[in-house]
C-alpha cells in the first residue's frame, strides 16, 4: 500500500510538477467515468440486452443515444475543466495545532466553465464544494497543521463532474508554498537572560508594566503597533512618528533555549514561541539563542517573524548559522 502511494506520488511529481499557478491542460487533467457514469453504462448495457432479447429497436436506439451522450460528455467535461486557472492565495504562516485556511483562487475567464467544483486536499476527506457559476473567490480550504516547520502543502484536488455527472475530471495540483508553521504557543513565564553574565536580569510577567509610561518620540518603524503612532504629530505633517514608552528599553535580554526547564524540546520551543509573541507585544528588545542559531536582540514584527521562523525550523542536530 505504502509502496504504491510512493510510486503514485513520484509519478505525479513528474507529471504535474510544483508550480505557482496552473492553467489546467491535458497533462494535468485526469478523466474517467464517475461512479454514476458506471451506473449509467450499466443502464446502457441493460437496455441493450433487453432490447436485443425483445428485438426492440427503439430500446436499442435509446441505448445508443445514451452512449453517444456519454461520449460527448467526455469532451464537454474536459473542455469545461481545461479552461480553469488555479492559483494559491497568499498565506504566510500558522501555528501548529490550529486549522489553517488556505485560500485558492480560481480564474474562470468570462465564466466559460460551469458546474459544481469540489476542492479538497489530496487524501483528506474534508471537501469544499463551490458552484463555478455563482461563487466568490478565494475559496478557503481548511488544513490541520500538526507539526511546526515548513508546511508541506498537500496536493490540492479539484474535481468536476460537469455537465451531467457522468464523467469525473480531476487534477492534483502541487503549489509552491513557503508557509511556515510556528510552534504552538504555550503560556509560560517570560525569562530574559542577560548575555554578559548569564544571570537573569528580568523575570518579566506576561502582563508587562509601565506600558504607557511615555518616554520620547521616534520615527515610526515598520511593525510597531498603530496605537503607538503619535497621530497629533502626524496631523501636523511631521511624518509618521511613534511614541516610545519607558519600559521597552528596560527589558533587554536573551531568550535561551538551553535555560528552559521543560523536558521536551518541542515544549521548550512552544514556550519560547509564546514568549517571543508576548515580548513583541510589549515592544521589548530581545535576542534569541537556540544553541546552534542566534538572533541578535531587536524588536518589532520583523524581528518577531525572524524569531518565530527560527523556532519553526529549529533542529537540534543541525549546525546553525547566526542570523
Amino acid at each position, binding site marked *: 500500500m505504502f509502496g504504491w502511494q510512493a510510486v503514485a506520488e513520484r509519478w505525479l511529481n513528474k507529471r504535474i510538477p510544483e508550480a505557482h499557478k496552473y492553467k489546467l491542460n491535458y497533462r494535468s487533467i485526469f478523466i474517467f467515468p464517475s461512479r454514476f457514469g458506471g451506473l449509467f453504462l450499466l443502464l446502457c448495457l441493460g437496455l441493450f440486452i433487453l432490447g436485443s432479447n425483445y428485438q426492440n*429497436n427503439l430500446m436499442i436506439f435509446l441505448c445508443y443515444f445514451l452512449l453517444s451522450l456519454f461520449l460527448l460528455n467526455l469532451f464537454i467535461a474536459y473542455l469545461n475543466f481545461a479552461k480553469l486557472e488555479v492559483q494559491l492565495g497568499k498565506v504566510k504562516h500558522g501555528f501548529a495545532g490550529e486549522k489553517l485556511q488556505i485560500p485558492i483562487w480560481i480564474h474562470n475567464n468570462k465564466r*466559460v466553465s460551469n458546474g459544481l467544483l469540489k476542492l479538497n486536499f489530496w487524501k483528506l476527506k474534508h471537501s469544499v464544494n463551490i458552484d463555478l457559476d455563482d461563487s466568490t473567490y478565494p475559496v478557503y480550504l481548511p488544513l490541520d497543521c500538526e507539526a511546526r516547520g515548513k508546511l508541506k502543502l498537500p496536493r490540492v484536488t479539484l474535481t468536476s463532474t460537469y455537465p451531467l455527472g457522468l464523467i469525473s475530471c480531476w487534477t492534483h495540483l502541487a503549489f509552491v508554498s513557503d508557509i511556515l508553521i510556528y510552534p504552538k504557543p504555550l503560556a509560560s513565564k517570560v525569562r530574559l537572560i542577560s548575555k554578559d553574565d548569564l544571570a537573569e536580569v528580568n523575570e518579566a510577567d506576561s502582563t508587562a508594566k509601565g506600558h504607557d509610561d511615555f518616554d520620547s518620540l521616534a520615527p515610526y518603524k515598520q511593525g510597531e503597533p498603530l496605537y503607538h503612532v503619535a497621530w497629533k504629530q502626524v496631523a501636523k505633517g511631521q511624518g509618521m512618528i511613534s511614541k516610545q514608552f519607558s519600559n521597552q528599553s528596560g527589558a533587554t535580554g536573551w531568550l535561551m533555549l538551553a535555560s528552559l526547564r521543560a523536558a521536551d524540546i518541542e515544549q521548550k520551543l512552544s514556550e519560547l514561541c509564546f514568549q517571543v509573541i508576548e515580548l513583541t507585544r510589549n515592544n521589548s528588545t530581545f535576542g534569541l539563542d537556540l544553541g546552534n542559531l542566534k538572533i541578535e536582540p531587536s524588536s518589532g514584527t520583523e524581528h518577531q517573524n525572524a524569531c518565530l521562523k527560527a523556532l519553526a525550523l529549529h533542529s537540534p542536530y543541525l549546525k546553525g548559522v547566526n542570523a
Partner: protein
Amino acid sequence: MISSSKNHAHIILTLVFLCISLSLLAPVMGWILILVVCAVVMRSALYLDLHKHAPSVRTLNLLALLSAIVLAYFSLQLGVLLGMINLLVLACSLKLMQLRSIKDYYQLITCCGFLIGCGFIFQNSIGFSLFYLVLTLLLLLSLACHISPSLGINKNLKRIAVMGVQALPIAVLLFIVLPKIGPLWQMPTSKSHQTGLAEKVTPGDIAQLSQSADLAFRVTFSGNIPLPQERYWRAIVMEEFDGKTWRVSPERKAIQRQYKQYNKEFKPVLSGRYFSYQIITEPTHQNWLYSIDIGVPDSPQSANQIWQSHEYQLTSNTALVSNFQYSLRSFPDALLNQALYSVDHRINTQRPDSGNPETQRWVKNLRRQFPNDQEFINQVLAFFAEQPFEYTLQPPLMQSNPVDTFLFEQQQGFCSHYASAMAYILRLADIPARLVTGYQGGEMREQDYMSVYQYDAHAWIEAWHSDKGWQRYDPTAIVAPNRVTFGLKTAIEEAAELIDSPFSLDGFSSIAWLTDVRLFLQDIDFVWTKWILGFDKSAQKDLIKSLIGELTPKKLALFGLSVIGLIGLLLAFFFVPSLRGRKRDYISQYYQKSEKLLAKLHIYRPKSQGPLDFANSVERKLPNSLHQPFNQVTQIYMQHQYTKTTQQQASHNKALMKIQWLRLKKAVSRQLKH
C-alpha cells in the same frame, strides 16, 4: 443530505417519473400508481416548501415491507416481466419518498432511464417514441440542474438541447452500423399482453377482436397483388373440438415437438403461380405467423426464423415481442395434400359423441341421402344459403348444445359460429374437417402496402378432399358474400359504430381531408414500422450492401474504420471551435498581422512597450505612407480593447481594420521593393 426545497433537479425528476408511470398505465397495478402519486405529491410539497420533512426511514421501511408482501402476492398472476416492471415502479416511488442523498438521486435517475426503455415494450408508435424521447431529455435536464444549479433552467435546457442534437447523428450512425444481435435468451412475455388471435376459439370470441381497429400486420407485395377474395391469411389451425370450443390439437403439438427435436421441418413441394410478399407484424407476444394459403419462406433469414408445420401453419421461433419482418412466397393454386393423410385423418374426424342431438340427427339423414363427400358438402353449403341466416357481430348467447341452437333456433352468428358449425357437421359425416383462424381482407394503400386490421379477423374451415387434399370452405361467404369481397364494414352496418373511433373517420366519411390526414398518418406509420421498428439484421445488411457493394471482410473493415472516422469528424466539428476559444477576435488578429508586416521592415515592438508608444515610435522611424495606416490600426485596436462597443460598431471596426491593414500591406511591399 440534499434538500428538495426549490431544487429544480428533484422536481423535474419527479415529474418525469410521474409521466413514465402514467404511460405504463396498463402494465402497472393501480395501487402502485397510487403510491407513485403519493410520492410525487410529497416531493412537490417539499419543493414548494409546503412541508418540511420527508417521512422517516422507519415509516418507509414499513411501507416497503407491506408493499413487497402485496406485490409478492400478485406476482404469480403477473408473470416475470410485469412483476419486474411493477417492482421497479414500486421501488422508484419508495425511493422518491426517501430521496436523501446524492446516491439516491443517481439511482433514481438510472431506474427512470430503465423504465423508459421498458415503456418501449408496450408502446412503440411514433407518438410514444417522441414522448419518451422528451422524457429522456428531461431526465438529462434534471441531471444538468443537479450539476450546475445556478446556471438557470433556461441555459441548462439549451445545453441539453444542443447535446441532444449533437448526440443524435452519432446514435443514428451507431444504430445503422453496429451489428444487430439476436435474442440472447428467451425473455418472459406477459400472458395478459397477448393480442390478436387466440389459441382456442369459442364461437363469439372473434367477434370481440372484430371491434378493434388496431393494426394486425402490414404487407408489401412484389409483383401480383391477390384479389380481395384470395386474401385469406391463415394463422392458426384448430383441430380439436369438444362440442363448444376449438383449440390447437395437443396431438399435433406433440408431433410438432418431435419434429422440432429432430429438426425435421415440413417442406411442401410447390409450383404454379405465386405471390411474393413481405409481412411486418405488430407485436402479439405469441408465435403465430400469417400467410396466404401455403406460404414458404422467401429468404434464408426468414427460413431461419420460421417453422413450417404439417398443417401448413407457420410459427416464429421466438414470440413476437416486437415488430417482426419476414418474407414469404405463397402458392394459391397448390394443393394441400402433402402431409401424412393418416395423421390428418385421425385428428380431424375426432368429435364429441354427446351433445347437439338435433345436429347429429340432421347430419345422419343428410348423409344417408348424399354418401358422396362433395355432394354432401354442397348440400351443407346450400343449407346455409337457403335458411335465413344472419351475419352479426352481436349474436345471442348459446350456452347448451350451441351448434343445435345456432343451426336451428337462432340462426344468427359471426364467422366463428358458421365455421365451427360446418366443421362439426362435416366431422359428424366422417369427412375430416378443421377450423382455421386468421384474417380475411386487407386494405391496400395505392400499390404500396396492404394493412390488415384486427377487425379483419376471420374463421373458416378446411375439409379433406380425397384428390385435392385440404380444401377451403367459407360458410360466412355464403351467408354474407360482402364480407369477403368488401370487408366487414360493408357486411355489417353496425360494425362501423362498434369499431373504435379512428375507423369511423374511414371510407364513408364525407370529409375528404380527414381521410387524407388518416391516410397520411398511416403512410408515416408504415415508414416508421418498416424502417425503424423493422430495421433488423437483413435490413441492415441490405442497407450496408447498397452503400458499399458486395460485403467482403476487407470492405467491411474499411467501412467500420470510416464510420469511426466519421464519428471522430463529427466530434471534431462539435468541439474544435470551443477548443480554439469562444469567438475569434478578428481585430486583435489584424493587429498582430500588422505587427508582423512591420517586422518585415525590422521594426519590432518590445514586450514592455504598449501599442500607443509603439505607434509613436513607428511614426518617428517610418515615412507617412507607412505610419498612417499603422496609426489607424493601433487606434481601432485600442478602442476595441479598452472601450465597450456594440455589435454594430464592432463589425464596422472590423471592416475599417481590414481596409487599414490592406493599406499597410501595400505600403510595406512597396517599401520592400525599393
